[in-house]
C-alpha cells in the first residue's frame, strides 16, 4: 500500500528507518527513497506500508509517530539530563533544540546570561564572536571569567567565555569565530538558526539584520542592550508560523516581523500612545552614538547637553512632546556608560533565552518585536513597533 504523507518543517531530517516494532508491532512501514522530500515539489512524501494487521487507528497513530520523529531519538543521557525541561516543552522541542546552531556577538552581561541559558537548555552548537580583550569592567558582570590575570591575559573575551561555557554542558559544541562581525560574508550566516548581537552600533545591527534576511532560510535575529538598570531586546523572526495553544485547541498562527531598520523607521506619531519612554530614549542615545561615531555605551554624563539637543531635534522632527523622553531618564542611561546592572542582565538574558528557545522549538508565543525592562518600576513590557500602525 502506498500513502502520501504530509511532512513537517523538518521533513528532510525525518527518520527513514522502518517503524520501530516496539510501538506498533502490527505495522511495518518504509519511506520510498526514490523520491526524497527535499527534491519533491510538494510537501509530501511517499510511504510504503509493508505489513499491516490491526485496527486503522493503530496505523494512523503509527504514521503520526513517524511524522513526529524528525531526527534521532534523544539518548538516555540526554533524557536524564533534560528531564525537567522536557516536562515543560516536550521531547520534540528538545530534539529541535539539540540540532540548532546559534551565533552571538558581544560577550557582556546579558549575552553571557543568554549563553548560559541556552547551553544549559542543550542547543546543538554555540558560536561566540568578540575580539575585545578582558578589562576590569568586563570582569565585573561576567561570571565566566576567572579573575586571575595569568589565565586571561592575551586572550579575547570570546575565547575565555568559550572555555567556561563548554563546561556547563559537554553535549553542546561551543566555539569561537575570530574576526569582525561586519566582515563576515553573507553566507557565513547560513550555518545558524539564530543570531544575537549586542554591544554594537546602529549600523552594525542594521547590516547584520539585512544579511540574515537575504538568506534563503529563515534566521532568527535578536539585538540586546542593557544600559543602567534598563534593558531592550529586539526580535526579527521574519515570517514566522507557529502553533498557538488556546485551552485545548491549537491553531496555526503567522506573524510578520519588520526588520530592525523598518521598525525604528516607524514614525513616532504612528506609535500607540502608551509606548514605553524607554523605546524613545534608547533611540536618542543610539542616534547620538551613531552620529558621533562612538561605540555602544561609550557615553558619559558630560554628553548630556548634546544628547538633550538631539532629543529636542528628534522630537520636533517626529512631532512628539519632549516630555515623552524625560531628562532624568536620559541622564540615567548616560551615567551608566558601559557599566552593567547584573540583576537586569539576568532578567534580559533570561527573557532572550526563552525567546530563542521558543523560536527554535516552534513552541509557545514569541514576543513581537521589542521587550523592555526597567528595574526602577519593575515592569517587563512587550511593544509591537512597526510602520504599519
Amino acid at each position, binding site marked *: 500500500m502506498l500513502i502520501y504523507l504530509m511532512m513537517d518543517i523538518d521533513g528532510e531530517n525525518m527518520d527513514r528507518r522502518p517503524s520501530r516494532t516496539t510501538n506498533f508491532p502490527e505495522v511495518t512501514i518504509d519511506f520510498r527513497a526514490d523520491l526524497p522530500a527535499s527534491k519533491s515539489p510538494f510537501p509530501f512524501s511517499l510511504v510504503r506500508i509493508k505489513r499491516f494487521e490491526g485496527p486503522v487507528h493503530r496505523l494512523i497513530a503509527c504514521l503520526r509517530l513517524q511524522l513526529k520523529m524528525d531526527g534521532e531519538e534523544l539518548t538516555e543521557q540526554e*533524557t536524564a539530563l533534560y528531564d525537567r525541561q522536557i*516536562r515543560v516543552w516536550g521531547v520534540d522541542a528538545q530534539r529541535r533544540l539539540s540540532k540548532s546552531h546559534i551565533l552571538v556577538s558581544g560577550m557582556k552581561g546579558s549575552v553571557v546570561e543568554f549563553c548560559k541559558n541556552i547551553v544549559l537548555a542543550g542547543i546543538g552548537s554555540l558560536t561566540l564572536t568578540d575580539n575585545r580583550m578582558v578589562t576590569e569592567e568586563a570582569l565585573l558582570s561576567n561570571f565566566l571569567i576567572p579573575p586571575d590575570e595569568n589565565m586571561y591575559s592575551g586572550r579575547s573575551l570570546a575565547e575565555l567565555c568559550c572555555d567556561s561555557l563548554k563546561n556547563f554542558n559537554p553535549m553542546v559544541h561551543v566555539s569561537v569565530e575570530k574576526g569582525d562581525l561586519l566582515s563576515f560574508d553573507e553566507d557565513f550566516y547560513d550555518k545558524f538558526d539564530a543570531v544575537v548581537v549586542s554591544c554594537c552600533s546602529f549600523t552594525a545591527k542594521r547590516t547584520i539584520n539585512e544579511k540574515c534576511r537575504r538568506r534563503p532560510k529563515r534566521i532568527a535575529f535578536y539585538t540586546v542592550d542593557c544600559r543602567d538598570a534598563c534593558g531592550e531586546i529586539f526580535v526579527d523572526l521574519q515570517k514566522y508560523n507557529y502553533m498557538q495553544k488556546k485551552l485545548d485547541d491549537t491553531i496555526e498562527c503567522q506573524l510578520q516581523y519588520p526588520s530592525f531598520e523598518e521598525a525604528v523607521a516607524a514614525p513616532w506619531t504612528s506609535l500607540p500612545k502608551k509606548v514605553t519612554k524607554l523605546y524613545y530614549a534608547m533611540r536618542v542615545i543610539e542616534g547620538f552614538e551613531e552620529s558621533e561615531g562612538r561605540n555602544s555605551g561609550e557615553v558619559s554624563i558630560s554628553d548630556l547637553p548634546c544628547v538633550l539637543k538631539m532629543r529636542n531635534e528628534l522630537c520636533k522632527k517626529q512631532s512628539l512632546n519632549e516630555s515623552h523622553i524625560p531628562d532624568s531618564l536620559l541622564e540615567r542611561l548616560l551615567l551608566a556608560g558601559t557599566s552593567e546592572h547584573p*540583576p537586569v542582565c539576568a532578567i534580559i538574558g533570561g527573557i532572550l533565552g526563552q525567546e530563542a528557545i521558543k523560536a527554535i522549538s516552534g513552541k509557545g508565543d514569541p514576543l513581537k518585536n521589542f521587550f523592555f525592562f526597567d528595574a526602577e518600576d519593575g515592569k517587563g513590557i512587550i511593544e509591537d513597533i512597526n510602520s504599519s500602525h
Partner: protein
Amino acid sequence: MASEQQAQAIKNAKVLMVGAGGIGCELLKTLALSGFQDIHIIDMDTIEVSNLNRQFLFRQSHVGQSKAKVAREAVLGFRPHINIAASHANVKDPEFNVEFFKQFNVVLNGLDNLDARRYVNRLSLAAEVPLVESGTTGFLGQVTVHVKSKTECYECQTKPNPKTYPVCTITSTPSKFVHCIVWAKDLLFAKLFGDKNLENDLYVHSNDTSSSSENAEDVFERREGEDPEKYGRRIYDHVFGHNIEAALAMEETWKNRNRPKPIYSRDVLPDKLVQQNENLDKNFTVDNPLSVSAMTSLGLRNPQDVWSLVENTRILLESLKLFLRKREKEIGSLVFEKDDQLAVEFVTAAANIRAASFGISMHSLFEAKGISGNIVHAVATTNAIIAGLIVIEATKILQNDVKNCRVTYCLEHPSKKMLLMPVEPFEPNKSCFVCSEAPLSLEVNTYHTTLRNFVEKIVKAKLGMNLPLIMLGSSLLYEVGDGLEEDTVANYEANLEKVLAELPSPVVSGTKLTIEDFQQELSCDISIKHREEFDEEKEPDGMLLSGWTKSSTSVVSQSVPLEREDNEHVQWSNQ
C-alpha cells in the same frame, strides 16, 4: 550603574539564602556579581543529574555532593574575595533559631516546599528580618516581599492544600489518569511491596461481594512455592478482572458513569507468548537494585513511548517477577520512589492497565513518572529571571525603601503587554494566626478524636509547628522537647491516646487551647467546638479548622503561578 548609597548598602549587607537549587544557583551568582560580600547559604540537598540542566554551578562530577558547599566553591571561583558560608543542613534544625536569623539584614528564599517556607516565614517574623520569597514552575514564577507589620506574611493567605482525592474515586470510580496512578502507587504497590501493617483500602469495595470464594486478605500473599509468573497472573486477574466484575455488580455506581471492562491476563497475553520471553532475563549482571528494569528485560527502550495493553501486561508481570527474584529482601518495606526504575515501571503498567479498563487514555513511563513522583517542571531561564528580581527587591529593602517594594509575577502570556508584572504588596491580614496572632476555631468530635490525632493533623500538619506545647489554662496537656522528666513524657504519651473530652483537663465545647512553639516563637489560641458528625469524603480528618480567612483577592486576572508542592498532585485523603 548603582548609586553610591546603593553600593554601600549592598556591601554592608549580611544575607541569608535558603535553598541552593534552581533559583538558589542563579541567586548566588547574581548576588555575587551585584557586589554582595557576606552570604550564608543553607541547603540540605545533594546534587542529582536532573539538576544539571539548570543549576549551572554544578557539574556531572559533583553528583552526590552538598548543593550549598559546591555552589559556594563555584561562586568563589569568579569572586574569590567575598565571604560565603555554606551549611549542608535542614533550615529547620535547631541551630537556625531566632538568634541565628537576627544576624541578617534580609532573608532570601529559593525553596521548593511549603513546610520549609512556613518555617522561614515564622523565623523571619520572630527575628524581624525582611523576607523575599520566590517560586517557579516552568515559565511561570513569582517574587514576593514580606516585611513584618508592613506587608502580608507568607502565610497571610491560605495556601492551596495538596490536592487530595476522595477514597472512592481512587478505589472504584477513577476518571483521570492521575487517579489510576494514585491507585497503582498508594494501593497496589504499597499492598504488594510495602509495610503490611499499614492501612490499605485496596479492596474496600471488593471483599464484600467476592469474599465467598477467597479470603481477600490472602489474595496478595504469595503462596508457599508459588511460581512467580502464576502469582503475578493471579494478582493481575484479581485486581483487573474479579474486582472490576465485583464492582460492576453494584448497578447504582454505574448509572451515570461508563462501565469499566474487566481485563484478564490470559485474554491479553496467552501463556504461549510468555514462554518465548522466559529466557530473556538481561538483568542478571545488574548490581544496583535501583537499576533493575523490566523494560531492559523486554527490550523496550524509549520512556516516551506509550505501551500497548500487551506491553503493559508484560511489564507488570515482569517487574513483579524481578521484585521477587532480585529484590526479595526489600519486599515488605518498600516505599515508592521516583528514582526506583522498577517501581516506576510497575506503577506505570498497573496504572495503564487500570486506565484501559476504565476507558482512560494510557500514558508513557516518562509521563507516569512525572505524575507519580510529583516532578517539578523547571527551566533555567525562569529561575534566572526570578533571581534577578529577588536581588532588585532585596536591594530596595537594604536601602530602607520598603514602600517601593513590589510583588512581581513572571507570566507565560503577556497581561496588559507585561511579561513581568509588578504589583504592590498586600497589607498584613488581620486574621492571620501567624503574623497577627489571631485566634482560630476548631470543630471536632471531642469524644472520638484523640489528642494524637489533634497533634498530628492540626498542630503539625495545619499549623506547621515542630515542637508544640499545648496548654489548657495553666495545665500542660502535651509538650515536645529535650530535657523532659521521664514520668512527664510517660504522662504525655498516655494523654496522646486519650480522646479530647477525657483528658486530665477535659477539652470540650467552649474550651480555649493555647498552642506554642518556642523554636518558632509562635503562639496561637484555638477555641474548641464540639460537633457529632463529619463528612468522611469532604472532611476526612474529622476536624474543621477555621478562622484565618483570605485577606484580599489578587489583582492579577491571569492565573498566577504558585509554588508547586512536593506532594501536590498525588496526595489523597486516607482516613
